[in-house]
């Protein structure tokens, strides 16, 4: 096995792995080792996926979740970018307040959900707040780090042309920070999705998280698998799209 592994070999191996997993799944489903439908047969999951594709309720809930994630990303992302620019632009402010964001970032945000319910009610507001709170931290930290990485020469060129603060932001800072900003957006999207969906599973009457809990309470296991597959596929797809659109390779930036 040399370093020049042919792409064909990789593709074939992937197909073989997928095939093996599906075969093992089907064997487990038919074995009767687990309670009925805990591992449903592939045919049942495919049927549930087909049913989901034609269910108007699914699209209504998908729109609800997408709107909540979109608004939370817009609010949390813009506040995160503003905070990041402020902290990255001032050494004193960065040293004073960035450690708080750095250490608060990896805390479990879902425990703030009762607070968000008190502040914004049990409707979409509290879910949006959860998503915004979740995505604020990675966006702010990455923006601040990106701000500090800007080549000093570019900033001096902008100042020598007497660029106004707005011109500095749009002509120098944002173009020079496009990779960190997009990376922040990508990470922010990932955590906003988690924040919104988890909040929907806890207390909601709409959204994909609510649908997952409905399947759970009705013991509709094929339906739950189908929903989880769709949610995972959508999350990975949007993540990959943001990376590709921005020319990002997650391992490089």
């Amino acid at each position, binding site marked *: 096995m040399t370093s020049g592994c042919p792409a064909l070999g*990789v593709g074939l191996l992937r197909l073989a*792995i997928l095939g093996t997993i599906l075969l093992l799944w089907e064997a487990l489903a038919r074995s009767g080792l687990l309670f009925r439908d805990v591992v449903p047969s592939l045919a049942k999951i495919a049927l549930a996926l087909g049913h989901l594709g034609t269910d108007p309720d699914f699209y209504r809930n998908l729109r609800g979740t997408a709107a909540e994630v979109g608004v939370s990303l817009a609010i949390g992302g813009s506040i995160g970018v503003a905070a990041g620019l402020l902290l990255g632009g001032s050494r004193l402010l960065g*040293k*004073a307040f960035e450690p708080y964001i750095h*250490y*608060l970032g990896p805390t479990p945000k879902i425990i703030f959900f009762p607070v968000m319910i*008190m502040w914004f009610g049990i409707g979409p507001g509290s879910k949006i707040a959860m998503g915004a709170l979740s995505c604020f931290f990675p966006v702010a930290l990455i923006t601040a780090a990106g701000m500090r990485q800007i080549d000093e020469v570019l900033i001096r060129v902008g100042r020598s042309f007497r660029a106004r603060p707005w011109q500095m932001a749009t002509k120098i800072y944002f173009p020079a920070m496009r990779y960190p900003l997009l990376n922040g957006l990508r990470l922010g999207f*990932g955590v906003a999705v988690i924040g919104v969906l988890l909040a929907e599973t806890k207390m909601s009457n709409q959204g994909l998280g609510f649908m997952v809990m409905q399947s759970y309470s009705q013991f509709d296991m094929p339906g739950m698998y189908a929903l989880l597959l769709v949610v995972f596929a959508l999350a990975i797809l949007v993540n990959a799209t943001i990376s590709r659109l921005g020319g990002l390779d997650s391992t490089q930036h």
Partner: protein
Amino acid sequence: MANRPLAEAKCLPAALGLGGLAAVLALTEMLIRLGWVNRFIVPLPSEVFVSFERIILEENVLSRFLATAGEALAAAFLVSLTGVALGAFLHRHRLLRRACESWVAGLAAAPLVLLYPLFLVIFGRNALTIVMIGFVSGLPPAILKTVEGFAGTPKVLLDVGRSFSLSPSQLFWKIAFPSALPVIFVGVRLGLMFSLINIVGVEFLINFGGLGQLVNELAERYDLAAMYAAICFVILVSVFFFIASEKLERWLLRSA
């Protein structure tokens, strides 16, 4: 004397940070006392501070902390064992690595914690569900960093080992593994952070276990001050854990 401005310059950001935090708390206290902020929605910071004693004495916060820590430890053990073994396996089989690495990276970006209703059905509403969620969510970073760690072993070290006619097993245990250990630890630490976040989150969501359940119970009892105190306690525990693991990681990277 010359060092004094330097020391002052170092203290200024910390003082500004702490001062800013104190100012926000004081402002919140004032706004609530003036009636501009509803105290039935946001409790007085002073009440929250006093409630710490109550959650320690009456709500058994320490035994709940131990329950969460036990779950996190079990998940960490599983993540370290499985993640490092799978990472080493992927590194040894290059074709398999090329086929699977992007899948593992995709899983690292997927909202794995959403699997908890499924795990509730499979394992029941008990600690095993929480540990398994912690394990599953912590696994991808541990695998990815282990692969990265082994891939970064300097070739010259391996060549030295081969020149001493070491067997493949000796090459692995005496050279590749020690060399990759600091990066592997970074992965295990990341995995542990993901595990801890999801463990507390699932405890809160399914109302079972340690600290997460405490926050949920206090919210359901509408004991606002104690609920805020419990949230602060969870944050303090997370931050302490994060700082300790970060320091350990730095020490490992320095000594490597």
